[in-house]
């Protein structure tokens, strides 16, 4: 039987299909890639109650219009965006049933960050090196275009599932990023490092899946490159200084090898915060020891299990019920907030 489809009626640039990417083939020059905010995909997994992480539409900043040809459930995670099903507003950080013919509209609330739309019927696109993730800098996959039509697999959860997940608000505000020292940290002098830790950085508009540029006031963060250091390995989370001493935090779609020195590597749990930091928000860096970092490291499995326990049934907010007057409410007066 033919599965349901999703038609793309409108789309802004920067929407791609993402999953957890392609680990362990750096030797071919392919960086890990996948969702800029992996935690948002774990949240979708918990909301949908499915056994594996499903591919999602990653909306960088803006969004689009998705039309469904069959019933399914969609999870909305990551940076909060405006979501409407037809004329009805949908709560973000939740999953909602959709029916045949429904149209979902996703629009931005702010500049920066990544929102995720994950259907419970898995998006079917070709597997390349065992992943569906678009890696545009590598020439793998495409941006989602108007007129695209995605085939879907069968639904992996109950069609009526309507759940929510309270997310710590500091996941989307920038803030403190902990980082590990790496092979090149010692190229930076103690004074430069101290100044780096005491500087407030501002998230620039120059941000994409490759990295986030950080603006700051003051002298560039220079280091000793007198010998012309050999190009060396790069991983997502690396804090790279260009030759001009300008910092970038590198994200999922970074290069695999590069010559600009790296101060260190932001730990995975804080990297999602960096990817999701809105334009203009403030970031500070704090070194963390390997021992402390190991203590806070959680496997994918443990993170998803923890999120599953936090998922609760959705209680409809009366403000969002468009046909409220047609409901049989209790007689007498109610303020509407005592439900």
């Amino acid at each position, binding site marked *: 039987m033919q599965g349901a489809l999703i038609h793309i009626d409108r789309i802004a640039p920067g929407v791609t299909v993402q999953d957890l990417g392609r680990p362990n083939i750096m030797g071919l*020059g392919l960086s890990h890639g996948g969702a800029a905010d992996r935690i948002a995909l774990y949240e979708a997994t918990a909301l949908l109650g499915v056994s594996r992480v499903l591919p999602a539409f990653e909306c960088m900043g803006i969004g689009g219009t998705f039309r469904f040809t069959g019933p399914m459930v969609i999870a909305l995670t990551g940076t909060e965006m405006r979501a409407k099903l037809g004329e009805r507003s949908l709560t973000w950080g939740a999953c909602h049933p959709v029916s045949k013919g429904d149209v979902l509209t996703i629009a931005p609330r702010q500049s920066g960050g990544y929102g995720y739309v994950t259907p419970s019927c898995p998006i079917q696109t070709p597997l390349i090196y065992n992943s569906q993730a678009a890696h545009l800098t590598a020439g793998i996959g495409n941006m989602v275009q108007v007129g695209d039509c995605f085939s879907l697999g069968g639904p992996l959860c109950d069609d009526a599932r309507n759940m929510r997940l309270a997310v710590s608000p500091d996941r989307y505000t920038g803030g403190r990023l902990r980082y590990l020292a790496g092979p090149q940290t010692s190229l930076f002098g103690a004074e430069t490092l101290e100044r780096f830790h005491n500087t407030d950085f501002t998230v620039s508009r120059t941000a994409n899946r490759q990295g986030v540029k950080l603006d700051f006031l003051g002298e560039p963060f220079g280091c000793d490159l007198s010998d012309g250091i050999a190009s060396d390995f790069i991983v997502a989370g690396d804090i790279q200084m260009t030759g001009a001493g300008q910092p970038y935090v590198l994200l999922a779609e970074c290069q695999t090898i590069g010559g600009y020195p790296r101060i260190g590597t932001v730990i995975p749990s804080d990297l999602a915060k960096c990817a999701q930091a809105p334009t203009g928000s403030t970031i500070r860096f704090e070194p963390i020891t390997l021992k402390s970092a190991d203590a806070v490291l959680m496997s994918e499995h443990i993170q998803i299990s923890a999120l599953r326990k936090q998922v609760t049934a959705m209680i409809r907010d009366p403000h969002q019920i468009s046909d409220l007057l047609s409901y049989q409410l209790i007689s007498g007066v109610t303020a509407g907030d005592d439900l």
Partner: protein
Amino acid sequence: MTDDHPIVTPKIYPLGMDALVIQFARTVSDAASAAVQFMTATLQGNRHEGIVEIAPALASLLVRFDPNRVSRQTLNSWLTTLCADHDWSQLALPKSKRTWEIPVCFDGDAAPDLAEVADVIGCDPSKIIAEILSAELRVLAIGFAPGQPYIGMLPEHWNMPRKSAITAEVPAGALVTAVRQLVLFANPSPTGWQQLGLTAFRPFDLSAQDPVALRAGDAMTFVQASQSDISALRDSENPFGGASCKVH
């Protein structure tokens, strides 16, 4: 072997939560490159439990592990012992198994930084071209972007730093240089390296059976081509852009 940086001393650093990097030297050299290739082969033949990836760079080697299967500490001790067992000063580059010959154009728009590089080295652009055409080159590592080769080593006087300002974009197929190496860009890309030429070679082609054509260790020579040759090769369906590969 000419080499101004013969000292190879392996040092092991953590990189992020799940990788260790064995750095043989800070700077590129024939000796460091030989050490990387030797250690890559050693680890490929003798994988410790929990290692999930081994990748060579120019003067370093990445070992990624699954923290659920082996601890960083255990792996670090094992690698330290392996490194201590070798005399790193006595290595030569292993013999190459294949040689590639790749057409490249050094004219006009294909070589926007040729004059500047000639100026930095202090010779005529024609001598720069002659040195690239006659150099004995190897693919030292694949990286930055999929399939993209780092090629070396050019003579010592090519040891120029990257530009401090990034060029917004060089085209796919661009041949660029910095620190005694050449890189052949797989995709349009920003770079701090200087562009000396343009090829029609596609280092990464998803329609091919093996999308990544080159491997670390391959030998490479360049042959001069005209702008019209390269245009015609770029328009053709052949991902190798007129390149040939001899297996030894």
